[in-house]
């Protein structure tokens, strides 16, 4: 017996926590962490609905799988960028990256 | 038939391409290419003048072919009496200014590319008879000019270039709106400048007024008409010498030419309606420009404001709405190009020696530089309208034309003649006369090349002064045709 609305609520909490983190963290790594939360919220929903509607070919899971892969790729690039930026500017705070600002 | 107009327009573009392909170090070769191409343009323009049939009202040397058939855009070039002398003027000043480009000491490659691009734009504007094409050339003038002032100009070049660009662009945007309106008002939609007048002259009067004003904005800024003139002193002062020559000699004519080619024939009712206002603006230009020129201490700025004043005479002739006035205005355009071109060359020559343009720092240059003094006096006299030199004929005809239409106003603007004489002679007094202010050794007299650049202009001043018919013969029929259309 799986409480569907509860899982949806958990997903909503993860999503909103992620949104909050993305909006407030100064540290780029912090932002990346929050993005992972958002993606996980989505994944959770995908898997849940895959089960809920009972798909035959596991589309939801495959979708989630793709998302995991893309998220991994994204965070790899993100982190490399963070390191590159840090190497140049000795900071990874978003408000310090204003080289291109007017 | 030999497409002489296309050659005139695109030869400089070809020159620009050649310069583009040359290595950066080959400065002499670049100058050579630019000179040869502008000389070829000059020769072609002479050929054009000689081949021009004077008795005809219609366009000559016409080249028509469809260009963008979906929009009914044509590649349509042609000259008539209104433009032929200006084409010659452009070619002549283009060549002389190119010859005077020795003062450009860095980034010559870009300079000569942009310069020839500018030539293409100016030529094209004078010969384009399709609105679409006209607008392209009109804007094409703007961009090289922006860079030419902005890169090779004086200390405040960025400001001047930006001001020039934005100011002129503001006008031409309005013109674009008007062009589009005109385009859609015709069925089938057309950009043909010549045929559109049959459509536009039948438009509603308020719409005509609006369209005329939109074109007016573009032309008034180019002329420049008071109070849209403040870009001019800045641009002139900051631009390098050859570009000042082109700016004053040719660019200002674009605006006045626009009135003749577009403003008046397309909207005759509006032209009649606004002619008195134009005359008042002309009066203001003449007097105000002269007064401000009188107060200048910067040589170049003084010449710049004198341009404002002289273009006022063009406006007066234009506003006169009679043959004498139109002839005078067209002739004054030509003359002003010649004279002010020579004046800017002279200022540049002095600046190359003294590295200052402050009139109060000169004095007694008649002694060390007699040849320069001769040319400066000569050109000043031409500019202040001494009979026997070309400046007089244009001013005389313009004033006579406007006198026939507006007595009092012309009488007041004739005061401009006195003030003009005042500031030019005051300038001569400060530069040439009096005790020698600074070390005379730094003022070596003109070199042969400098004399060679000035001499053609002075010869034209004398020839046109004595035989104005040389230029007037080209215009006469076209002016008659225009008047017949206007009335």
């Amino acid at each position: 017996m799986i409480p569907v609305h509860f899982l949806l609520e958990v997903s909503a909490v993860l999503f909103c926590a992620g949104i909050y983190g993305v909006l407030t963290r100064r540290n780029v790594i912090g932002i990346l962490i929050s993005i992972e939360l958002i993606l996980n919220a989505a994944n959770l929903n995908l898997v849940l609905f895959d089960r809920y509607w009972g798909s035959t070919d596991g589309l939801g899971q495959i979708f989630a799988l793709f998302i995991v892969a893309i998220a991994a790729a994204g965070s790899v690039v993100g982190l490399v960028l963070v390191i590159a930026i840090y190497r140049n500017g000795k900071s990874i705070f978003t408000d310090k990256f204003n080289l291109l600002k007017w | 038939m030999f497409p002489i107009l296309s050659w005139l327009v695109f030869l400089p573009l070809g020159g620009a391409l050649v310069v583009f392909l040359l290595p950066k170090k080959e400065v002499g070769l670049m100058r050579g290419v630019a000179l040869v191409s502008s000389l070829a343009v000059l020769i072609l323009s002479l050929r054009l003048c000689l081949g021009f049939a004077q008795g005809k009202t219609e366009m000559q040397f016409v080249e028509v072919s469809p260009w963008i058939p979906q929009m009914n855009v044509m590649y349509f070039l042609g000259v008539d009496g209104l433009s032929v002398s200006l084409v010659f003027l452009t070619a002549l000043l283009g060549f002389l200014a190119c010859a005077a480009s020795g003062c450009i000491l860095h980034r010559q490659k870009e300079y000569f590319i942009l310069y020839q691009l500018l030539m293409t734009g100016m030529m094209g504007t004078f010969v384009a008879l399709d609105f679409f094409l006209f607008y392209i050339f009109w804007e094409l003038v703007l961009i090289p000019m922006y860079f030419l002032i902005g890169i090779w100009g004086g200390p405040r070049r960025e400001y001047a270039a930006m001001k020039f660009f934005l100011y002129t662009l503001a006008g031409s945007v309005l013109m674009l709106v008007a062009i589009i309106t005109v385009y859609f008002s015709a069925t089938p939609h057309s950009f043909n400048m010549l045929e559109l007048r049959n459509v536009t002259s039948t438009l509603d009067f308020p719409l005509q007024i609006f369209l005329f004003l939109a074109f007016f904005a573009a032309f008034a800024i180019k002329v420049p008409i008071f109070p849209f003139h403040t870009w001019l002193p800045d641009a002139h002062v900051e631009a390098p010498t050859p570009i000042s020559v082109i700016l004053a000699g040719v660019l200002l004519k674009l605006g006045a030419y626009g009135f003749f080619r577009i403003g008046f024939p397309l909207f005759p009712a509006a032209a009649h309606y606004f002619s008195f206002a134009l005359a008042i603006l002309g009066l203001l230009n003449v007097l105000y420009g002269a007064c401000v020129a009188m107060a200048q201490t910067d040589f170049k700025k003084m010449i710049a404001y004198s341009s404002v004043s002289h273009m006022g005479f063009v406006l007066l002739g234009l506003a006169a709405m009679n043959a004498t006035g139109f002839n005078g205005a067209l002739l004054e355009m030509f003359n002003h190009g010649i004279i002010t071109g020579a004046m800017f060359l002279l200022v540049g020559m002095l600046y190359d020696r003294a590295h200052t343009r402050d009139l109060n720092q000169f004095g007694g240059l008649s002694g060390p530089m007699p040849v320069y003094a001769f040319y400066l006096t000569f050109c000043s006299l031409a500019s202040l309208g001494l009979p026997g030199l070309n400046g007089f004929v244009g001013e005389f005809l313009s004033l006579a034309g406007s006198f026939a239409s507006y007595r009092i106003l012309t009488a007041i603007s004739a005061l401009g003649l006195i003030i003009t004489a005042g500031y030019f002679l005051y300038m001569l007094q400060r530069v040439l006369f009096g005790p020698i202010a600074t070390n005379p050794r730094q003022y070596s007299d003109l070199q042969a090349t400098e004399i060679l650049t000035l001499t053609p202009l002075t010869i034209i001043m004398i020839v046109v002064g004595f035989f104005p018919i040389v230029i007037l013969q080209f215009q006469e029929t076209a002016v008659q045709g225009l008047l017949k259309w206007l009335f």
Partner: protein
Amino acid sequence: MVNVAHLIPLFPFLAFWVNILLGKTLHRASAWISIIASLISMVLSISTAQGFLAGAGSYPLGTWLTFFGQPIAFGVIVDPLTVMMLLVVTVVATLIMIYSVGYMGGDPHFSRYFAYMSLFTASMLGLVLADNLLMLYIFWEGVGLCSYLLIAFWFERPAAARAGLKAFLTTRIGDTGLLLGIFLLFAATGSLSFTDLSKANGPEWMLMAAALLIFSGAVGKSAQFPLHVWLPDAMEGPTAVSALIHAATMVAAGVYLVARCFVLFAAHPVCLEVVAVMGGISALMAASIASVNNDIKKVLAYSTISQLGLMMLGLGVGGYSAGTFHLMTHAFFKALLFLCAGSIIHGVHTQDIRLMGGLFYRMKTTGITFVIGTLAIAGVPPLSGFWSKDEILAQAFGPHPVLFITALLTSFLTAFYMARLMLLVLFGKSRSELQTHESPVTMRFPLVVLSFFALFAGLLGSPWMHHAFQKFLAFQVPYPSEEAPSKFVMGLSIGVSLLGIGLAYSIYILHRRFLPEGIRAQFGWLYRLLMNKYYIDEIYEAVFVQPFLRLCRLSFRFDMAAIDGVVNGIANLVRRAGGILRRLQSGFVQNYLLIQTIGVLIVIMTLLGKLCFQF
């Protein structure tokens, strides 16, 4: 009969170009090129005169430009007036050029000087030959230019440069009036030709206004009140220039113009009256200033203004031939006087008459010719000035009592100041240790020739020759017949002349003072007024020049502040608006994200508003 009149200005014009282009190589020879050119012109003028007497007349040359559909022709007018002017101009010009060879001897810009002189001669000859107003205007400006160039010839002197500027600008004011007059005349009659003037018909007021505007040109050129201020300053130029341009020929062009357009004036008595009154004012005013001035050239300059005023007065009272006659005689004796003055200045290197004295015995030729010139201008019979002045007085005598008295007073003052000048310069004891020497022969020769003319030119118009000159001038001219001078007027004229000379003699020779103390004390204010030339220069400076310059500076400031201010203001407004708007673009990703989030929320809420918050 070959028409050669149009070739007359050509040779000096060619000489101008030869001298200006080849001046460096020619150097001394350039003088002879100019002299030969004007000699050729003189010969041609004489042949034109003969041709005219043989019946030749005006002829057209070609069309210059079309003007309201009317072709404006280059043409040559040959009539008595022109013939007279041609002869006067070529003779005087040639003589003065010969004089200049000596006078300008050591000048570094020798050839340029002769180039300008030739250009002037060409323009002046063109002026008198022009058969329409437009052509006349062209040459009119040409002579003005030469005057400018020659006044400022010694360009290193600031005063000379200023004087040139002043001369050009002051005359230009009149010229602009002339130009407008030409326009108006054309608007009224549709023709600019002089021959059409007599049948000019158009609106009355336009013709009148045109005549007055044309007269304003003459006022400027002939240095009449109120545009006379440039002439005294013009004395900064070389004296030979003053003799040619500012005494004999160019300044007389104004009188010539009025004479040329005399029909136009004659048709409107008001215009004639204006001419006469302006002439009278100028004559009296200048004569009074000349009576106290101490600069030899300035005295002569004011004398010129005064004499020109007298000519204008003569024309204004209807004396066409009287005014013209005086123009001719004046050209000779005033040129002579200037050349004498030049010779004296050449000898003593000062212009202040208080420092001269007793020069007669050391400069014989100059002295004698100076005396002749003085007597001629003072109106002592039978010298030339007497006859022409008499004509004017006779004209004014009847109907114009005020003008007559003015003219008479002017004659008296003329005799007085000229005698004063002569006595102070030539006679008495030397008042300073000046080194003097007689001038070279090239300078003396013109003096002698001119004094011959000053002596005898007047006889042409004297009753002894049955007013031959007047009859010649009036030939074919439909002007009212003029009064012959009566015995009474002649006597009066001789009387005031002798009175003036006698007064000067008694003051300056017998009392050997510049002015008796008593008179000076009593009329101190008058003396100061006259010494300061009625403060006219100062008034102009304060009323016109300075306010105008202030206006110029003000308009420049207005341009910078107001107009450019508006332009830059608009630019700044746009920039500032951008500055405010760009704060929205903080450049922080998270800021954008926040706004995006809020935006998404708003979009969802509006789209699904009904669905929201329904628990």
